[in-house]
């Protein structure tokens, strides 16, 4: 009985954060196995691929899951295309006609590369998700917008640089980002396939911490606006992986005075070990941990406090295990 209660409360907590919990009764193992079974399959026959991935799955969410994991684990990010698009977008920032002309030429090259080498950038991922879904009668759209990373769209909506998808399952729209789920570029700009489940059917509020669409309706939450996007703490792929929702401070750039107490808090549906929570800064390449206090956990909310001692500009990072999940800047004055 106790364990039943535990499970029920676990799901209630879960549902408050992750949208994927709308499908908590569904085990994605068979869907993921289908994706694994067709690993290495080419893109020369999309209808056949879509059929193979989904024919023995019963529900739309499982079918979509098989398509999603297949795309994430079989398509590689292409740093060359990524850079080229990025440069052209910057160059033609104020000349949309020239950009569109370039876009239409580049599109052909990009599709050829996707088709033959299975390499692409966000648009290609989003296109495949939409297309494969369409082929099995699941409604999906490509959403263009601003992706917030450590180097772009940090404090302003500077550059439309990213595409992701919305998908309609059981008459409700959900958010997914196959590009950022698929992996990352390492220090040598080489693509590393490292599936991150945190961008699959993500809670709109968490999703909006790093994704702002050109069409506001695709935020899927009316209360969100772009100031929240650019002022929120910096989040990372690991934030999504651990399903961390930073609560306070709710802004990235903070100012404080010496020995003033700052309370930090965040929510997670996952079972976070308090011993693995830390606040740190880099001194060169060395990590220095701050001596945080009053660290506690109530339901799924984790809080702690810290007083900065010196007059200084700090870059502080919230860390869970070995992963940085949020960054703040703190300007400490006398």
């Amino acid at each position, binding site marked *: 009985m106790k364990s039943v209660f535990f499970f029920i409360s676990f799901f209630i907590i879960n549902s408050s954060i992750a949208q994927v919990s709308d499908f908590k009764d569904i085990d994605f193992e068979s869907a993921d196995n289908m994706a694994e079974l067709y690993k290495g399959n080419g893109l020369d026959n999309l209808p056949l691929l879509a059929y193979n991935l989904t024919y023995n799955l019963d529900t739309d969410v499982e079918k979509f899951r098989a398509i999603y994991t297949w795309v994430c684990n079989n398509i590689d990010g292409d740093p060359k295309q990524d850079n080229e698009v990025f440069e052209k977008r910057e160059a033609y920032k104020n000349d949309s006609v020239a950009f569109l002309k370039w876009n239409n030429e580049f599109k052909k090259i990009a599709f050829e590369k996707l088709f033959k080498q299975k390499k692409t*950038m966000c648009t290609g991922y989003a296109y495949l998700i939409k297309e494969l879904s369409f082929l099995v009668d699941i409604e999906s759209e490509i959403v263009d917008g601003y992706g917030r990373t450590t180097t772009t769209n940090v404090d302003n909506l500077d550059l439309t640089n990213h595409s992701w998808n919305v998908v309609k399952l059981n008459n409700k729209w959900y958010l997914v980002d196959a590009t950022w789920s698929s992996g990352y570029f390492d220090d040598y700009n080489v693509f590393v396939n490292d599936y991150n489940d945190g961008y699959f059917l993500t809670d709109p509020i968490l999703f909006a911490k790093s994704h702002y669409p050109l069409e506001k309706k695709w935020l899927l939450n009316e209360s969100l606006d772009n100031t929240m996007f650019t002022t929120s703490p910096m989040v990372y792929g690991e934030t999504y992986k651990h399903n961390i929702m930073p609560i306070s401070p709710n802004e990235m750039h903070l100012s404080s005075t010496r020995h003033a107490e700052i309370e930090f808090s965040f929510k997670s549906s996952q079972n976070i070990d308090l011993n693995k929570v830390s606040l740190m800064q880099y001194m060169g390449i060395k990590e220095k941990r701050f001596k945080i206090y009053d660290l506690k956990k109530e339901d799924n909310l984790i809080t702690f406090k810290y007083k900065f001692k010196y007059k200084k500009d700090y870059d502080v990072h919230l860390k869970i295990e070995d992963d940085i999940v949020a960054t703040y800047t703190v300007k400490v004055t006398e």
Partner: protein
Amino acid sequence: MKNQRKKVSYLAGIALVCLTLFSITTAQAQDVTTDISFVVKGNVSDETGPLPGVNVILQGSRTGTATDVAGNFEFPIKLKKGDVLIFSYVGMESQKITIENQESAANIALEVDMNLVEIIVTGKVATKKVYTSKKNKDN
């Protein structure tokens, strides 16, 4: 008297079974007669002309073919009303075409126009870099 009544109901039972059986078979027969199947042929093109290599697949199956150099195809099996053909080519908008019932026609000729996908390219793949403010970068 009692026996006779039993006999009657027994016969009635048999009659009922026969009746049901016949009505089922006639219902089936009717289905068959409306299930006319067609040979489906066609040509697929885009704004520049015939499009070779377009996949043509019956939805919900592995059955299909691809267009030849002149953009022509003949579907390998006969199709019936309500079947959905998918036309797909990477970079083009996929199309689904439902086979309509065409009285007396044994052939269906499809003219399919494919259009380039309308997208704007973007590119931002995730990195593992940690944010550093400008002030701290200079230090």
